Structures are given as C-alpha cells and as structure tokens.
C-alpha cells in the first residue's frame, strides 16, 4: 500500500540575490512520519522550513504541503502547527489563556476549546497549573506546553524548530515521548535539531550541507551506508562546514 505523502518537494530552489540557499532540494514526507532535518548552521535548514511553513516563497521548484501548493501560503498555514526556536507562548498570560488563544486562531470555537484544554492538561498532569502565568514556569514545562499548543488544533503536520534546545535530558526524553504520541495520532512531525542523538529517534533523517541534501534515509540505513556507529560520526564525515580553518 502506498503511503500518503503529506509533503512533496521537487527541485526546490531558493535564491537570495545570487546566493543559493536551497539548491534543488527533493524529498517527500509521509503521513505519520517523524522526519528529522539535520545540518550545520547556515546549511539552509531554516530557509527550507520557512518555505514549507508558508513564511516565504520558493524561487523555483515544486513544493506541496498538506496538499496545498507553496504559492498559497495562507491555506497551508491553516493546516499546520509550528513551534519556533524563540519562545512562542506569552509570559503574561496563563496556560489556559495561551491555549485558548491559539485554539481560537486556528478556528476552533470556545465550545471545542474548553473540553480539549482540560483533557490536555489532565494528560500532561498539569491541571493545577492551568491558571498559572507562563512566565513563572520552568523552561522544560514551557517547552512541553509550547509543543502541546502547536498540535492542539490537530494539524496535519507540525514543524518543530530546534524544540529541545537548552532543556535537561529528562525533559528531552519526555518531549520525545510526546512526539511519538503525536505521530501515533497520524500527525506528521517535521523536526530540525542539532542534537545528533535525537536523529536516532526519527523515522527518516535528512542531512543538509551548503544548500543541498547530502543524505536522506532511515537512521540505521545511513549508519550502515557510511559505516558509522552513530549519526554524529557520519555527520562529521559528510557535512563539512564551508570554510575550513587551517
């Protein structure tokens, strides 16, 4: 049975003037996958993700996200969720108020939001903090909440931009459990990270270097291919930074 593609990218090119940030990228993402996007800084990850999220337009190439062409970003936005690198929840609003806001933005009615909020809080064992201001919560909790908010409206795909930066190992583990749960609900997870061990948790992984995709496969297949015992090792092998210091 052919798996449904939720993201189709073919020959994506993004240029800024004469600088080519994305050089003929081609890849597909299947429904329910956990798709990892790896690469050094400046490799073109952020540029690509921004196009997929509808934040910018491709210079050329075919990009279809959730069945919508990338030239109609407004439609794409309705079907996706996003968790940004810089913080996204409002410090001076409570947990419930933040959830309500994003739920409403994505078109849910108060009738839909309320019960689902309680259900979410219960699941995270967080109900007693429902009326706490985000600003007074520790970072790990905030990150988990941000993720929960990103998928609150049941998007088809959720994009996570370095979601576990600066978080302790235990919270990171819990976070990935949340990701697994989400994928199990048939929500596709598109995650960028530069924690190499997290690459192992993904179904498939892409490695970008200097605007091009230099590897795309499951973690085990990649390790075998490059004869490495870890993703980190093979990353160093194939993703050399542009300027080598002597």
């Amino acid at each position: 049975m052919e798996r449904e593609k939720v993201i189709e990218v073919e020959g994506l090119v993004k240029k800024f003037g004469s600088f080519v940030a994305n050089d003929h990228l081609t890849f597909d993402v299947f429904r329910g996958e956990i798709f990892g996007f790896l690469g050094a800084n400046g490799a073109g990850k952020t540029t690509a993700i921004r196009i997929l999220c509808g934040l910018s337009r491709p210079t050329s190439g075919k990009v279809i996200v959730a069945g919508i062409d990338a030239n109609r970003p407004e439609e794409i936005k309705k079907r996706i969720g996003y968790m940004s690198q810089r913080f996204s929840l409002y410090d001076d609003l409570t947990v419930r108020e933040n959830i309500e806001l994003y739920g409403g933005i994505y078109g849910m009615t108060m009738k839909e939001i309320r019960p689902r909020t309680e259900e979410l809080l219960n699941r995270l064992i967080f109900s007693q903090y429902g009326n706490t201001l985000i600003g007074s919560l520790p970072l790990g909790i905030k990150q988990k909440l941000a993720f929960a908010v990103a998928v609150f409206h049941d998007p088809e795909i959720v994009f996570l931009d370095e979601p576990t930066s600066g978080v302790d190992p235990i919270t990171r583990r819990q976070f990935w459990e949340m990701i697994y749960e989400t994928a199990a609900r048939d929500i596709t997870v598109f995650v960028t990270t530069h924690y190499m061990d997290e690459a192992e948790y993904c179904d498939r992984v892409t490695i970008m270097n200097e605007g091009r995709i230099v590897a795309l496969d499951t973690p085990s297949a990649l390790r075998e291919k490059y004869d490495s015992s870890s993703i980190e090792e093979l990353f160093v092998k194939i993703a050399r930074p542009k300027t080598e210091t002597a």
Partner: protein
Amino acid sequence: MRRLWFLLKKEFRQIVRNPFMLRAIIMVPLLQMLLLVPAVTFQIKSLDLAVMDNDHSPASRELLAKLSGSSFFTVTSTPADYKQAEKLLYSGDADIVLIIPDDFSEGLAGVTTPRLQVLADAVNATNAMLGWSYLTSIVFDFNRDILINQGMTPSAIKGISTSPRFWYNPTLNYKYYMLPGILVILIIAIGLMLSGLNLVKEMEIGTLEQINVTPIKRWELIASKVIPFFILGLFDLALGLSVGWIAFNIPFEGSLLLFFACSAIFLVAVLGLALFFSTMASNRQQYLFVAFFFTMVFVLMSGIFTPSESMPQWAQQFNLVNPVAYMIRINRMVMLKGSGFYDIARDMAALSLLAVAFISFAIMAYRKRA
C-alpha cells in the same frame, strides 16, 4: 473575524495583567487633570515691585500708596540706591523697579518736567510688557487726580477710558484654554506611545514570528494591536473630560457627539502614526525615541500653549499636516465656543484625510517590511 476576537481577548488580558499600565491608563488622566490644569497659565497673579523713592514728598507717597493698593503689584522692597535696585532684578527678587527722582513733586508743580523711571526684568517679556502697561495706567490715573487737585475741570482732562470684555471666557480662565490641550496630550500618550511600544515589543521578543506562521492575516494582527488602544484612548478621554467637568466646571458648549467623533478620527490618525513608526524601529528603545520626537514636535507646534495663528508662515504650513493642531483647534472651538459642524467641517475633513493618509503609509510600510 473570530480570530480577531481571540486576539483582542489576549491583548486586553495582557494590558490588565500589567499593573503599571493600568495605573498609567487610569491614574494618569486623573492626576494630569487635577495637577497640571491649574498650573498651566500665563496669567499674572501679581508682580513684585520695588520702589526707590528719592523724593519723599506727599505726592510720591501717594503714588506709592496707589501702587500698593493695586492688586496687581506687591511692593516687596524699597532699595536705597540704583545699584541695589539693579541687584534686585538680577536676583529675581523684583520684577519691576520704580524710581521716583528727587524732583518729582517739583515736576508735578510745573517747575520741571515730572519724570519716572522704570526698570523691568524682561526675561519674561509678557510679564514685563503687561506690568509696564498696568503701571502706566496707574500713573495716568494718578496724573489725572493731581491735575484735578490743581484745579483743572475734569472735562478738560481729555482721556479715553476702556474696560475690556472677554467673550467665551469672561474671567480669562486659563483652565478652559489648557484643558483641551492636556486632554490631547493624554490621548497621544496612549495612542502613540503605548500602542507602538506594544507592537514593537512583540517583534522584539519573537512572538511575532509565531504569529506569522498562523493563519492570522496581517490586517487582523494590526487591528488587534490598534483597537484596544483606540478604545482605551476614548475611555481616557471621557474620564479626563468628566474629571475636568467635575473638578473645574469646564463649560461644554458644543455637541458631545461631535467632540467624540472628531476625537475618534484623531485617535485613528495617531494610531496610524504609531503603526508607521513601529515599522521603522527594530526595538522598543528606538521606537521610544522616534515616537517621542514626533510627539514633542507635533504637540508643541500645535498651538497647545500658544496660538498657532501667531506662528510664522513655515510653522503654519507645517501644521497643515499636524493632526494635533487640528484636534486642539476643534477641541477649543467645540468645547468653548460651541462651534457647530459647519464651523469645524473643514478641520474635520482635513483631519480625516490625515488619518487615512497615515494609515495608508503604515500599511504600505508594513507590507514592505514583512
């Protein structure tokens, strides 16, 4: 549309959560009204007069008595010599010095020409001129009395008398003049400062990026930033007006509806400016500077403290695009003179045009940016 509703809910919650902001929005109008309005006046209470009497005659003493009796002057010192008199001007202890020469009474008797010398501290030119003007009036009266005493028939002493009357503000109550101005400053503080800071803050902190990924349309975002402060601005206006009415008995001759309609247009113009400036600033500090600069310039040039009609040509030209100038004028005309729609129609139209223009610039600049 529903999205906007959720955004507005969030904005209001954030405003209410910041106690400082709340205090600023409610306390400040009250404080400003009560504290500033009585103070801002050019009307002279009384001037400090120093008199150097070198004549020591009954006539000079009579003149002195007349001056002391006037409510306008307070005789505060009697310097002994010229140098001392000058020192009083330098130290600010006297606003005006009157020097009666030693041959004053002889002059009055017709032997010589009666002279009087006046030294005035003209740093405050208005006070100096008015003080001088009052002094000459009193001297003239005194002169008249002397002549009558000397036997002249009153009808032979020709003189024009006058007592000025003031329309729309018979007691020359400065509060009536200044209150509309202070109200306008209030609205600008809220409309330009707070709203713009709010907008830029979101950009600075990064929550804006998250908003960009959502289905929120740009106009919805802008509206959510602008509408709360629009409402707050009008609220504050009403609050300030009530306080002014209760505390100072400010008259309100014209139509309240017209007043609020114009204020609403003005607020839109101001918010449009805030939006425009926010596209030029990358952080709140920059915005603060830019907004403050323009606030100062617009407010001072608007005729808030001094009439815009007596400004030079270039200033009057500038005021053609100064929304504050229109607002002040409309305010005063509607509140104090009871001017009706036709009287202010031109100003109102111009203000509306400005509002539309600013909002358009803002939207264009915003598009370019994002």
